[in-house]
Structures are given as C-alpha cells and as structure tokens.
C-alpha cells in the first residue's frame, strides 16, 4: 500500500516545475512536503490527483497507475489551497456531494467538527472568510476517511487557536484511523513535531527525503563569539551562518564530538525551520 511517484517531470511553457521526481508515500505515515513558494509542491500534488498530467513518468497508487483511473483516485483526497467547490453551494450540500464520491465520508463527524469550529453549515461557501474557507476544507479532509489524504497549505488564514485545534484533531484522527497524510506547507515550525518524514523540494527537485529525526541528527548549531565560532568551523561542513553583532551561529552538518567543543561555544540541535531555510536559500 503506497503512492509511488516514478520519474515524474513537468514543464509549464519554459519553466521546469518538476524534474525527475521519485518518491514513495508509504502506508500510515505523516509526511511533511516542504518547499518555498513555487518549488513544485502543489504541482506534485496535482499530478498525484490527476488534476494535471505529468509530461513524463507515472504515479502508481497501490500498484495501479493513477492516470485517469477512478478506482485509484477514490483512495486519495486532496485538500487544495485553491477552492474548486462551486461557491454558490451551501456547506452542507458540499458535504453531501463529497459523500457521493467518497463513500466513507463521515457526515456525523463532519457536523461535529463544524460545531467545534463554530462553522454554520447552512452558509454558502462564497460567504466564508479565508480562514473559514480553510476550516471548511479541513473538516472535509478530516472526515473523508480515504487511505491517502493530501493537505496543501491546510492552515492558511487560520488563527492560532484554530491551528492548534486542527493539529490536535489531525493527530487524534490519525491515531484512531491510521492513514497516509501528506502536509504540504511552508510553515515548517508548526508541523515539525507532527510529521514523521520530511521531504524537501527545491526548484522542482527533491533534495531531502528522510525521517525528521534522522535529518535533524545529521547536524548541529554552534553559537558564541564570532571569532571563536569562525575558528571552530574552519574544517567543518557549514551550511549557513547567522550573525547578530559580535555573536554568530553556524549550522553544521556532520557528527558532533562534545569533547572538542571549546567551553565558550554553545551547541544546540538543528531546527527544521533553520535547516530548511539554509538548504533552500538561493
């Protein structure tokens, strides 16, 4: 049980959006698909769900090529950043409509979540604010019960309380009914504890694909007086630095030997956000 992306490339006129992407989304894991704006995250998700087609390569869902195959597509729900729902429909009508295509959609649960988020399901989609448009789509994604759920920027416009509720619901849902969840986002700090595996995409190419813990254990941050940091990092694999006044932090890939670190320098772990910024700069 998996979604396999094999050698997928996609061009939009002169820009290469995806370049020979190979990826596997395994059963019952939460993935973070991280990339800057325009890196190719949405293009990749759109190809998986057949909204657009790859120029080369293919997507295999549970062993079946997904291209124009409803059986494969019914296993995947994608919450898009864009709104593809008819805006003159009421939310409860869209719930019913979703139930027609995704038979395991849990109407009672969706209504319960709407209550929890204070969303009136008799409203039209077009009357919703940005935040509530996200909430309405999030509710469908949490209630749809497909083996694969793809979330493209799920917390767009949500306030801090609603984001907290969303992440907690997502974890609860995943614990009770395990499925494969792919969260595509550029808000890394928030998802970093939620995801198990990290995929970093940069200019259409996958540059990292491994467990969060493994990735973060591959390096460390060293900070202190700029001159001490500079002499410490000469022979190290430095992926980036930050300087504030006379203080400097350096992000280093490689294993750490605590004994060799001068006492005036402080070691902390890499955080995903910083690592991401360094890896996807320029």
């Amino acid at each position, binding site marked *: 049980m998996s979604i396999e992306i094999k050698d997928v490339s996609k061009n939009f006129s002169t820009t290469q959006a995806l370049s020979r992407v190979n990826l596997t989304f395994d059963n019952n894991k*939460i993935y973070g698909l991280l990339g800057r704006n325009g890196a190719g995250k949405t293009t990749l998700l759109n190809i998986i769900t057949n909204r657009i087609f790859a120029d080369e390569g293919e997507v295999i869902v549970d062993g079946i090529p997904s291209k124009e195959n409803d059986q494969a597509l019914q296993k995947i729900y994608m919450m898009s950043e864009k709104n593809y729902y008819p805006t003159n429909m009421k939310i409860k009508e869209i719930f019913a409509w979703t139930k027609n295509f995704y038979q395991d959609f849990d109407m009672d649960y969706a209504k319960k979540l709407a209550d929890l988020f204070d969303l009136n399901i008799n409203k039209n989609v077009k009357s919703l604010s940005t935040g509530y448009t996200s909430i309405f789509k999030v509710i469908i994604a949490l209630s749809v019960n497909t083996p694969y759920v793809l979330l493209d920027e799920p917390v767009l416009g949500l306030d801090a309380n609603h984001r907290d509720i969303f992440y907690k619901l997502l974890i*609860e849902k995943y614990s009770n009914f395990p499925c494969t969840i792919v969260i595509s986002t550029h808000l890394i700090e928030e998802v970093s*504890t939620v995801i*198990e595996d990290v995929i970093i995409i940069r200019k259409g190419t996958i540059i990292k694909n491994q467990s969060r813990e493994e990735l973060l254990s591959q390096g460390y941050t060293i900070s202190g007086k700029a001159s001490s940091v500079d002499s410490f990092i000469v022979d190290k694999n430095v992926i980036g630095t930050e300087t504030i006044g006379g203080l400097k932090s350096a992000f280093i890939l490689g294993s750490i030997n605590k004994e060799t670190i001068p006492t005036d320098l402080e070691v902390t772990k890499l955080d995903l956000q910083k690592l991401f910024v360094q890896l996807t700069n320029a």
Partner: protein
Amino acid sequence: MQMNFNEERPIYIQISEGIEDAILSGAFQEESQIPSITELSVNYRINPATALKGINILVDEGNIYKKRGVGMFVAEGAVERLTFKRREKFYGNYIRNLVDEAKRLEITKDEIKTMIERGFEDEHRD
C-alpha cells in the same frame, strides 16, 4: 508535564524523561495508569510514532508495562529504578555543567560550597 521541544535533545527522549519526572514526583504512582499514546500525542501535538518511541524506552527498562486493551501502567519498583538511574547520571548532567559555568564566571570551589549549603537551607525557593 511541561515540554519545551526547542531544546537540544530529540523529542522522544524528552517525552520519556517527562514521564520519568512524573513518576519520580508521584504524579504517576506505581501501578496507576498513564495517558495513552493518543492522549500524549494529541496533547503535545507530536507524531504518535514519536510518543511511542519515548514510551518504549520506559517499557524496555521495565518501568512501564502494557495491558492489552486496557492501557499502560507504571510498574512496581519504577521509582526505585529511576532514582538509581538518575543518580548515576547526576554527575554528568549537573556537576560537570556547574563546574564549567563556575569556571567561566570565576566562581571558586568554596563559593560553590556555600551556595550549595544555601540551596539546601532555602526550602521555600521556587
């Protein structure tokens, strides 16, 4: 159980130490039930696999046991075992850092001794 996931140690280690702290402080008594993996993950907003990895450290050391279909419980003797384990680590975790920092600040051995005395006397500190 308070968690700060911005520190150096991996989250699963912090989860396991947080539960150890709760056992040592008596918040989780021996033979009492502890929160489930789902409760821990939802509460701290962490991946259930991470919570499980943290709990498994306690299970492997015999301080937590699982009852199928019921939940997870603090094992008998956990407080004693954890106390012993923490004592073993006390020098590395606290004394070495204390001495390093004291050296940076040029605090003498005698001054530290005085401060330790004060720490023991001052029962009402926060």
